[in-house]
């Protein structure tokens, strides 16, 4: 098979982020946060705002490309894309940016995400729609939600708890296993002063004592609700060599929706109830990057909820189907001794919930050797966007030699 023509040909050359706050804590508007993150990422790259000629955003981003371009005085935009869904898209936008710059449709593409849940309402409440495009629930609901909301099935935690429960039934997975994922993320956040949960360590006992949200999910199985923004800058690797920072190579990028899966999750194939739906994406991604699970030194795995991280670990072949519980025992996910340190900045659980783009930023820091929880000698970082939310997406970042 021909190798993926984009392998290593595009790079992330700049990252930026605002301060992160608990939802409602931001002292600026969502739009101001978006602009700040973009400015920082472009400055980090050693480029000017006028060099930017492409924007990729997702999930009904309210800080629209046209508003941001005008406000910041960006160059003539030649490529713009908006990916559907929510956190599933965090790696897909980087994929789109890579395709755009590799094809010559654009030269410098910025991907950004801004979330001000304080300004616009919290994700954990009952809402209809997806991502920031969600609206308040009315007196009646049509479409798919006519069959779920009147049963009180109206939050992400509840929907994903159904998968976690089935995984427990089929494979003997326990709440402790889910808790071990939280403990790893919180441990890493203690080393990251940017993390909202910095200074708030978590033990497995704390996890087990936390209040139940939607059985089997407890409070600490759920991602945070945050305010903040982050951004990344993508360009061709040959162009990147002249820039301020050493490029971080996009070794592989992939998106995927398994056959039969889709918006109506009641209708998905049976095996996808206990999967992140990413097994096919994982196969594509490894083939494109020319590496396998054993080559991954560190991973940033989107935590909407802990059980879905466990299913992601299985989908990406770090263990067999149903073996995720056993795999995470014994500190496997914890720096510095674990075999697969994850979410080294604290992740969505303990750094901030910026719809997953913060995980890409942390992947870049790992490949630059600049993480506050640096995996020594790391050469490959896997980044996986929102699991069990098709179409989802993933990246393998490679340290430039």
């Amino acid at each position, binding site marked *: 098979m021909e190798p993926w023509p984009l392998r290593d040909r595009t790079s992330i050359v700049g990252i930026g982020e605002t301060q992160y706050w608990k939802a409602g804590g931001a002292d600026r508007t969502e739009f101001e946060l978006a602009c700040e993150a973009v400015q920082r990422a472009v400055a980090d790259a050693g480029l000017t705002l006028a060099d930017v000629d492409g924007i990729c955003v997702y999930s009904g981003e309210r800080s629209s490309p046209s508003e941001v371009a005008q406000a910041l005085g960006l160059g003539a935009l030649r490529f713009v894309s908006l990916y559907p869904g929510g956190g599933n898209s965090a790696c897909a936008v980087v994929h789109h940016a890579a395709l755009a710059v590799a094809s010559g449709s654009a030269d410098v593409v910025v991907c950004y995400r801004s979330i001000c849940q304080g300004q616009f309402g919290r994700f954990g409440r009952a809402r209809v729609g997806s991502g920031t495009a969600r609206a308040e629930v009315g007196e*009646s*609901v049509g479409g798919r939600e006519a069959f779920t*909301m*009147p049963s*009180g099935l109206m939050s992400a935690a*509840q929907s994903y708890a159904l998968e976690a429960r089935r995984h427990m039934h089929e494979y003997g997975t326990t709440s402790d296993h889910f808790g071990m994922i939280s403990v790893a993320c919180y441990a890493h956040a203690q080393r990251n002063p940017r993390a909202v949960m910095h200074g708030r360590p978590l033990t497995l006992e704390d996890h087990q004592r936390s209040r139940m949200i*939607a059985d089997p999910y407890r409070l600490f199985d759920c991602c945070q609700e945050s305010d903040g923004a982050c951004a990344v800058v993508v360009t061709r690797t040959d162009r990147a060599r002249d820039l301020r920072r050493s490029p971080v190579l996009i070794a592989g990028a992939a998106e995927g929706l398994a056959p039969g899966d889709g918006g109506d999750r009641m209708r998905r194939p049976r095996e996808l109830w206990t999967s992140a739906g990413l097994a096919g994406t994982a196969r594509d991604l490894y083939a494109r990057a020319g590496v396998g699970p054993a080559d991954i030194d560190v991973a940033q795995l989107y935590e909407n909820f802990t059980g879905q991280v466990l299913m992601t670990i299985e989908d990406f072949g770090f263990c067999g189907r149903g073996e995720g519980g056993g795999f995470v025992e014994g500190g496997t996910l914890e720096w510095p001794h674990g075999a697969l340190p994850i979410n080294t900045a604290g992740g969505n659980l303990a750094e901030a919930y910026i719809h997953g783009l913060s995980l890409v930023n942390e992947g870049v820091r790992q490949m630059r050797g600049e993480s506050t929880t640096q995996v020594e000698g790391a050469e490959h970082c896997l980044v996986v966007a929102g699991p069990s939310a098709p179409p989802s997406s993933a990246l393998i970042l490679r340290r430039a030699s």
Partner: protein
Amino acid sequence: MSAPTSPGFGATMPVPKVEPLTEPFWAAAREGRLVIQRCADCGTFRHLPHALCARCQSAAHDWVESSGRGRVFTYTVVTHPVHAAAVDAVPYTVVVVELDDCGGVMVPGNLVGDPAVAARVDLPVEVVFDPVTDEVWVPRFRAAG
């Protein structure tokens, strides 16, 4: 106390909107019957309702009455309400039921009835209908006798 067919949701709980595609479903529900959409061309069942058959892309369909019996495929006990109508109902149980008939489609709902019966995977259940308005009866499930 809540009625045995209801989890005890408040009056502001959203009511299903009867739409052209789903009108036969809700018309049957009003008569205490659970009906499932079946492709008129290839016979494949589907639920939730959709305009097209994913197997053969036909839009032609009929509605087949189910026994309303099945087993709990998975469930969650909700203790944290995210809507005002659920505040006084927690804890309530959401189930996904794999029907014994109709191609084993998955039907979401609540486990209602005897509060002493806890949800578990594989619990045999049967459908009951909760008349939330004169027009709309919402299907829920109770442990099968």
